[in-house]
């Protein structure tokens, strides 16, 4: 029974190393030029999906419905402004987007449906959850369109969450 190594992801990374900068007695290395991130680098495509959340995948009316549902069913823990609570993660902004970037909407839908609300899991039906998802998309700045987001797995599976708008095809 020696330690086993499961493949599939690398355990090593690039050798970033911090530098620091003296500032009087206080040594603060808040900025170090060597870390400059490469702005504009494309997301890595992780899923073979054609559509993304940038493709107007929900309707404004659905997001409004989702908003009411959110206020009723989610805001108590996740906050009226989706900023999160003591125990509950934010549902808008870079932390939320980073953790879901590259995943599909079915992942988000299932995560909500199978874990929320935490003290009475499973009371929200698929449509309720999809409406909330539509509202979360709106709150995160993704555009609305004419058609509603369908709550069936197949439809949700084909829509990728992407932090930034994909570059238009050449």
């Amino acid at each position, binding site marked *: *029974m*020696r*330690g*086993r*190594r*499961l493949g599939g*992801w*690398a*355990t090593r*990374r690039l*050798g970033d*190393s*911090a530098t*620091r900068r003296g500032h009087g*007695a*206080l*040594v*603060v*290395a808040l*900025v170090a030029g060597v*870390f*400059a*991130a*490469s*702005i*504009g*680098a*494309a*997301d*890595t495509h992780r899923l073979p999906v054609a559509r993304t959340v940038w493709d107007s995948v929900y309707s404004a009316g659905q997001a409004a419905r989702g*908003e009411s549902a959110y206020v009723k069913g989610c805001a108590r823990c996740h*906050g*009226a*402004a*989706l*900023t999160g*609570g*003591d*125990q509950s*993660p*934010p549902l*808008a*902004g*870079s932390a939320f*987007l*980073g*953790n*879901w*970037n*590259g*995943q599909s909407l079915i*992942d*988000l839908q299932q995560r909500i449906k199978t*874990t929320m609300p935490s003290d009475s899991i499973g009371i929200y039906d698929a449509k309720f959850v999809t409406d909330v998802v539509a*509202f979360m998309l709106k709150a*995160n*700045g993704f*555009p609305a369109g004419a058609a509603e987001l369908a709550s069936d797995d197949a439809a949700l599976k084909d829509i990728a969450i992407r932090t*930034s*708008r994909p570059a238009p095809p050449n």
Partner: protein
Amino acid sequence: MLHHSHSRLFPFALAIALAFVGSPATAQNATKPFTTARGEWPSYTGDARGSRYSPLDQISAANFSTLEVAWRFKTDSLGPRPEFKLESTPLMIGGTLYTTGGTGRAVVALDAVTGALKWTHKEDEGPRGTAAPRQLSGRGLAYWTDGRDERILFVTPGYRLIALDAKTGNVVPAFGTNGAVDLKADIDQEILPDITTGEIGFQGAPVVGRDVVVIGAAFREGTAPKSYKNNKGYIRGFDVRTGKRLWTFHTIPKKGEPGYDTWLNGSAEPTGNTGVWSQVTIDEELGLVYLPVESPTGDYYGGHRPGNDLYGESLVCLDLKTGAKKWHYQLVHHPIWDFDIPAAPILADITVGGRAIKAVAQPTKQGILYVFDRVTGKPVWPIEEKPVEKGEVPGEWYSPTQPMPTKPAAYAKNGTSIDDLIDFTPDLRAQAVQIASRYKLGPIFTPPVVSKADGPLGTLARGPTNGGSNWPGGAFDPETHTFYVASSNAAAVVLGLVQPSKERSDMDWIAGSAAPAGRGGGLGGGGLSVQGLSIFKPPYGTMTAINLDKGEIAWQVPHGETPDAVRNNEALKGLAIPRTGQAGFTVGTLVTKTLVIAGDPQVTTLTTRPRGAMLRAYDKKTGAEVGSVLLPAPISASPMTYSAGGKQYIVVAVSGGPYSGEFIALRLPAGGPQ
């Protein structure tokens, strides 16, 4: 109520257990056979002092980036469904790792070298578990031994204290009633409305010292409670051998007790909460216990509890054996910011101006480290009562002053001003300023406001609820007297109040927005972000070292990869943005002989490596990042380390987004022929 206990002792594990029972180390020192100094991790924070320090040094700057996965343990099957919020830090004693895991908070014992399962124990609590205010796997366990018996203690979601035989995972029948103490009973109050659904629980790890186990109390998220009345979060000490209650500390004083008069109009009677949902710390040498007490009922509105509200948001020191109060210091008077006290107080033996001080250092959401002489309760550096703004919410009571430490300087941003808004480009700044114009800005202790659709929607705050440093707390290096903490600068919270309907709450005011949720920005973006960017300037998250002999920040660096939303942002194209760090309130720190280790709270997707989150190592003297390894999901709990079979291991919990909970053990690669 059903009790299931599954003991799965594999033959080899049995052999280890038997060898362990007979080991001379167990008999040598009956009170403290296991310590971090011996390469073990016998308490949630390594020791009972909150240190998160281990002197192990096999994993170093020279080799950290070569760490490999030794084993992985997925927690999906420990409960009825996968868990996505794994916050437990395991214990390691005598070659066995003990941890909670899974949505129903099972306890498992794993082989420390292989990760192989030795036993599991799961309490099925039925509706009582389902109704629990603090669900899921919790933060961990306590271990106790008298040199012969070895026990694992944990608190179930339904608020029962269970003692398990560490060797088998079976309950210890002599403890409490058939191995369990009902924590909703014998608590100097009737838990309402009934034992099954009555709101009180605990997801932190119990802590044991001098044969006393101390248990905290926690409630639901409290920004919009259903009532200004609630159960009270009294803190109790129990005999670790019998489960007998030894003492109860009334975190809200009863009539006739000191502090009762800090609740005006008899408001100590209906008010509840005021528990300790984070970690209790014990000084075994001095026989003292330190409680970081949370907010009273109503996180942002205290009109139903006028007065300073002791011991809300106070650090309280008790006698470990009797529960008698030794001293207290209220960090926030009349709490209305949900600062709580969110983390383990840290015992720090320091030398200030040539004088040795047994100190206690308290990290907070407000990004301020409060440092006291832990014997006397006197501040090590002066804490001044500073005048603060009086608010205008009808019915609210305001403290005219708040305590402000003179040293050390705040390690996280704890207020908001126009100058804090992003200025990457004039356009982004203009959008951030427009969003901010709908809120009231101000320094720490700017009070909540009534939310108005035409503004202000609320007070825009950083610190309250999930800012600064939260439940993972900090770490302390006893050799260099340095405190380390990861913290967030970008957790924007809106302190806006609305009048609830009678059906929703009997509070006069609860948290809410006069504008429809999510439209706070009014620009189509996330309420408080601009094109996916925080409206606040980076760094979003930092790692800070504070020298506690001097009370000065030694170094501070951004912690966490620059988020995808920044790196890939069209609006920032062509700009060179230094590493921003990440906002997050799940970042725990671990200190070893030479390193400070902490994980990224967010996943990033780079072109140069697979999607994932980094576990990072910093040179603890300088803050220089000296290594990192890629993990598949956010690091969602404080890392721990131990030595087993001649190798040092680091174990982290990862979970979040679509990735369910998993423990990952890292160690150096096999040496190979030299």
